[in-house]
């Protein structure tokens, strides 16, 4: 072959037809001294984003199994590891992924989906073994690498590869200026487009299901919403929660605390999605869906429930569907308990609550309004007439601070005022008020009064004082944000020391000391104050919102004696049964103030009663 001819600056042209010189092969000798291009026998270092063997940061991993679910090769198995943290309420399981390299194809979808960003791939890629050591193909990745040698991080989650969407779909709400003089609902709820976008963010890990007190099927109903099948969503919601409208609006939403998407971003708006599903389906259709199971066979048993709140009515809902006759006794003129008389209209409109109650009564639950047990009927009468009695009386009385001058007539309990506002009763609206407490009830009363003050006087004069620092308030952060927007002043770390009264006996304010610490070394409640930092919060009335207690006077002396008690609460077994075999207790009065806990309690008690009554039926 002849040498290429170069013409001008152009590339050399090969003359294939030329026979070439006989000595041409000797030209190869010029390569003799050159360095070979062959790579050394040792494996080279892989590139920076190489997808090698897995690494897993056990501290960050929450065991949500998203990696297992996304793996199309079924290469990932979750392994339960005793001794690791296991806290469903916080959204942590003691499971860690194990990987089968007889299946894995290193696509790294597990890394891209991982909500905690704990999984990554290393730059290590050589593993060989013989038949006896085939078990080495099944590994439990940890931060140390497959062969305990550090090869460096390869493929990791980046903004571009992340499969999660970390921000919530936007939702319309009322602006502060449009809501501070009325009780209109603040949140508008999702539009269908927004709901589908929000539902698409869910990775179906089921952490929400585990953390929910009543174990709602949130992954299932979110999936149904995503599929555009809202009726199926309602069906899934009603599997565990008859207070669906209520929980779609005011739930404490432990699910969102546990949500794995919330580890690095905003959790799925599970509460608003539930609300969306409920709002999309007409009330009549919801009633039909609930009745799909068909009418149960009448059992002939009768159950009395005292208190038509979430716990009582959930128990009633379950029991009536098991074929028992259920009578609910409610002391007040409306059902709903705290959700009716404690939660203001702007958070939970009464008519949506009424829809939930209507679904339950449409099944045949009979509610006797204005019937106070203890005065209109006695417990003894109920015991005689019914096979089982459920005590679901809630926490109706407000706790008092018992600070000096707190017996003044302008010192109120928040629950009493809220009840007056909701039932439309006349009361003396304070021109300025100081609220003691940092929970949701404190926010509810402060924001309700603020609205009334704005209506009547045109300005808001409300101060909220609490022991805790603002970031540790028990109240929902949204509530605090909205309260501040509505012109309420929040003073944190203030321990109430006494109500100030002037010479004429008029209440002029609340004296507080700065809080140094709330709990002692043994985590017991024992606040310590800095007496030098004293503040007088001006106000012509003081409202105590520091908690509630149950009014158990309805039991009567005899029964109170007979029952076993535990620190002022009726003692119950894990199923809600008291020491009296015919009496169960459920709801806030046993498990503290929370709607969804009350619902869970209602189910638990109903299941226990059902079991008891079945035994009774079988005997006779």
């Amino acid at each position, binding site marked *: 072959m002849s040498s290429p001819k170069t013409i001008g600056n152009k590339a050399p042209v090969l003359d294939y037809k030329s026979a070439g010189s006989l000595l041409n092969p000797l030209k190869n000798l010029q390569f003799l001294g050159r360095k070979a291009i062959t790579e050394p026998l040792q494996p080279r270092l892989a590139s920076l984003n190489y997808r090698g063997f897995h690494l897993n940061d056990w501290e960050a991993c929450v065991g949500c199994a998203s990696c297992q679910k996304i793996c199309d090769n079924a290469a990932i198995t979750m*392994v339960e590891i*005793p001794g690791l943290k296991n806290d469903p309420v916080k959204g942590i399981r003691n499971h860690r992924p*194990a990987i089968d390299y007889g299946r894995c194809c290193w696509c790294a979808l597990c890394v891209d989906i991982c909500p905690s960003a704990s999984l990554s791939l290393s730059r290590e890629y050589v593993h060989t073994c013989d038949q006896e050591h085939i078990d080495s193909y*099944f590994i439990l990745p940890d931060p140390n690498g497959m062969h305990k040698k550090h090869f460096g991080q390869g493929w990791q989650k980046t903004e571009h590869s992340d499969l999660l969407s970390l921000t919530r779909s936007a939702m319309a709400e009322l602006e502060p200026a449009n809501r501070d003089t009325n009780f209109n609902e603040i949140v508008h709820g999702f539009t269908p487009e927004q709901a589908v976008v929000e539902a698409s963010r869910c990775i179906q890990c089921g952490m929400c299901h585990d953390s929910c007190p009543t*174990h709602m099927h949130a992954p299932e109903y979110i999936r149904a919403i995503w599929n555009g099948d809202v009726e199926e969503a309602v069906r899934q919601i009603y599997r565990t929660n008859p207070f669906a409208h209520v929980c779609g609006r005011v739930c404490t939403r432990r699910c969102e605390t546990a949500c794995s998407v919330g580890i690095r971003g905003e959790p799925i708006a599970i509460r608003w999605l539930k609300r969306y599903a409920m709002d999309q389906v007409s009330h009549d259709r919801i009633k039909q869906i609930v009745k799909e199971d068909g009418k149960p066979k009448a059992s002939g048993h009768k159950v009395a429930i005292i208190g038509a709140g979430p716990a009582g009515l959930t128990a009633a809902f379950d029991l009536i569907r098991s074929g028992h006759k259920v009578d609910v006794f409610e002391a007040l003129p409306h059902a709903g308990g705290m959700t009716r008389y404690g939660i203001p209209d702007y958070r939970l409109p009464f008519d949506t609550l009424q829809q939930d109650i209507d679904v339950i009564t449409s099944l045949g639950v009979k509610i006797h309004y204005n019937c106070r047990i203890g005065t209109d009927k006695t417990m003894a009468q109920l015991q005689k007439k019914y096979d089982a009695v459920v005590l679901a009386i809630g926490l109706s009385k407000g706790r008092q601070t018992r600070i000096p001058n707190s017996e003044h007539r302008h010192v109120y309990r928040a629950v009493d005022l809220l009840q007056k506002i909701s039932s439309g009763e006349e009361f003396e609206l304070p021109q300025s008020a100081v609220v003691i407490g940092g929970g949701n009830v404190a926010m509810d009363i402060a924001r309700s009064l603020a609205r009334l003050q704005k209506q009547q006087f045109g300005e808001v004069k409300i101060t909220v004082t609490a022991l805790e620092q603002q970031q540790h308030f028990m109240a929902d952060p949204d509530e605090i944000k909205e309260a501040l927007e509505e012109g309420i002043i929040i003073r944190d770390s203030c321990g109430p020391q006494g109500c100030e009264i002037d010479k004429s006996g008029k209440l002029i304010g609340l004296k507080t000391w700065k809080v140094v610490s709330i709990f002692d070394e043994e985590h017991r409640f024992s606040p310590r104050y800095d007496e030098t930092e004293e503040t007088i919060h001006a106000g012509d009335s003081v409202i105590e919102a520091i908690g509630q207690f149950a009014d158990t006077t309805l039991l009567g002396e005899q029964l109170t004696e007979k029952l076993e008690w535990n620190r002022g609460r009726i003692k119950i077994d894990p199923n809600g049964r008291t020491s009296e075999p015919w009496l169960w207790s459920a709801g806030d009065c046993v498990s503290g103030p929370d709607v969804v806990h009350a619902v869970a309690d209602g189910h638990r008690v109903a299941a226990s009663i059902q079991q008891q009554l079945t035994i009774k039926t079988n005997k006779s």
Partner: protein
Amino acid sequence: MNSAQSQSLNVLLQEIEGIQLTHQNQRRLRADISADALPALLALLRGRAGYVHLSAISCVDWIEDDQFELVYHLWSYETSILISAHIRVARDPGIYLSVFDIYTPAAFFERDIHEMFGLYFEGSPDMSKFILTEWDGPPPMRKDFDSEQWVMDNFTWQDYHPDWLKQIEQQGGGVVKSADSSRKSS
């Protein structure tokens, strides 16, 4: 291709009864016809429109409609328009006519479809096994064939038991059966 050709093709195709034409784009024409009319359509295309090439026959299992869809992809070097003729055949008994007499290569496509879907072509020269010579299960591309289930029933998997797993099992842990079995139920 020019519009005159396209128009004459349209006119020609109207000779087939009940034909529905959809121009998907300039060079793709979809024709939906009844199964009975297909041989006539193919004969017409081959004989009078220069469609000498049958590129493929594809099959779709519409299990909910209880039908197979057969798509005949035809190509003409003159018009450069790809015609896909769609027909529906009942899934049961799953018998249709061979077009081997019109297009010889159809024999392979039909044999393949018979193997994968179980649809029998009457008049096709050879309906014996084609690619899946080792297969005697149900036609695997039918929608009612559950490949995963079949694999689970017929194969075994590695039963790994490495030391780390033994250790964890001693402590009371172990492999979690399925992702959702770890969920609490109410």
